[in-house]
């Protein structure tokens, strides 16, 4: 088994096929989209492949250390930051092929006109624990 992160972007991913901003959808289309995501997660729970799913607010701050005894510096959000992560799903599957298959299904989530968004999702393998037998 191997864990994969299916990463969804607000921006930074290549443009999807059905590229209509969400605020231009009908309310029913938005509901259908969220229902699809919930059903997808529930199905993965049933197949024993679901680990985690979370959505992130697009708003955040940047924080860094500013030296001994000083409070951290906060800044941002920076409009020029290319990648903006919207959320993720973590799956535990038998193969990379299966991870790709599932990401493909998730990318079919409906958008404007009830048609699949064909959104680009990033599939990233987790760094696992090392195997015992190596030679």
């Amino acid at each position, binding site marked *: *088994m191997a864990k994969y992160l299916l990463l969804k972007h607000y921006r930074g991913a290549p443009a999807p096929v059905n590229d209509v901003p969400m605020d231009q959808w009908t309310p029913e289309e938005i509901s259908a989209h969220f229902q699809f995501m919930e059903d997808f997660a529930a199905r993965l729970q049933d197949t024993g492949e679901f680990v985690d799913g979370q959505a992130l607010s697009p708003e955040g701050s940047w924080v860094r250390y500013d030296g001994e005894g000083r409070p951290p510096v906060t800044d941002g959000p920076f409009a020029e930051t290319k990648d903006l992560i919207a959320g993720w799903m973590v799956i535990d599957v038998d193969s990379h092929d299966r991870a790709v298959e599932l990401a493909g299904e998730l990318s079919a989530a409906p958008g404007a006109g009830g048609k699949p968004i064909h959104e680009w999702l990033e599939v990233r393998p987790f760094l696992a*624990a090392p195997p015992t*037998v190596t030679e």
Partner: protein
Amino acid sequence: MDEALLRSLTPSVIGVLVRRGADFAAAEDAVQDALLEALRVWPEQPPREPKSWLVTVAWRKFLDTVRADTSRRRREARVGEEPGPGPGEAADDTLQLYFLCAHPSLTPASAVALTLRAVGGLTTRQIAQAYLVPEPTMAQRISRAKRTVAEVRFDQPGDVRTVLRVLYLVFNEGYSGDVDLAAEAIRLTRELAARIDHEEVAGLLALMLLHHARRPARWGADGSLVPLAEQDRSRWDTRMIAEGVDILQAALARDRLGEFQAQAAIAALHADAARADETDWPQIVEWYDELVRLTGSPVARLNRAVAVGEADGARAGLAALAGLDPGLPRHTAVSAYLRERDGDAVTAARLYAEAARAAPNLAERDHLLRQAARLNAALRA
């Protein structure tokens, strides 16, 4: 509280319930419930007869479920309130469970989960923790696995090789949580070896023991992975090595070589060297030749190239590597190692950094990064 005893009793208790008429899925659920109750109750009230206790409680749980499930009224009538005498302890119940839980219709992950629960007597929570997935996910994985094998006859003979694959996976995959899965895999393989006379079962058990014996030396104080050549061999478990070697020799004497015996033989040759530079590399290369012949595995060919590099020099190792697919996992790391030994530190440093980016786990990535950093520092000086 003897959790080991509880675990070891699990498969035979499932066997008793199946013999009394419960189907496997229901019997397994009932025994898991009984196991959870034992974990609760036994610390305060240890039973006089642990197995009878488990059978009684599991049977009661089974009947409760049957009663609660109105759609199963017919079955209730058939099974009856009082258990029939049934055949006594059947030595094969546990063996049949090994086969069922490793049935070829199951995916590897399902077979691993089902084996750990039904044969290993682990709780769903322990298995979920070990594989870092939520408990409901693991519960679903197990119940789907049980549905998959629902039509498989319990007394159907199975292929021991599929069982060995599953046990190898349990042993070899990284794990976390409070259950030592490597030790658990060894226990389950031991139990299997006691029930079935097969040279590859012995081979796998030997392989596990020979690798497990090195575990104290595999990790540095800072949590980093220590490569075989740099391990403090005085920390290897010599008793475990001796046991592994004995088991392996008895298996090899039967002259039916298989991949686990060949792998164990390689591990035994490493174990036999008091210092890394006393390793009998020419003989290890011969075992890799056998392994390649037996499996055709590209990974075995890659490891063989490392061994050739040690036996006949880095040039020979690079030549052995030349014919292999550069896309193989760890190909770049092996290439880096052989380049450095061939005196090409510049290329080696670049390849180590490249290998680190492609490393499948943190420990290897960190190790490869340190190798690149070490060479780069030397090149700067």
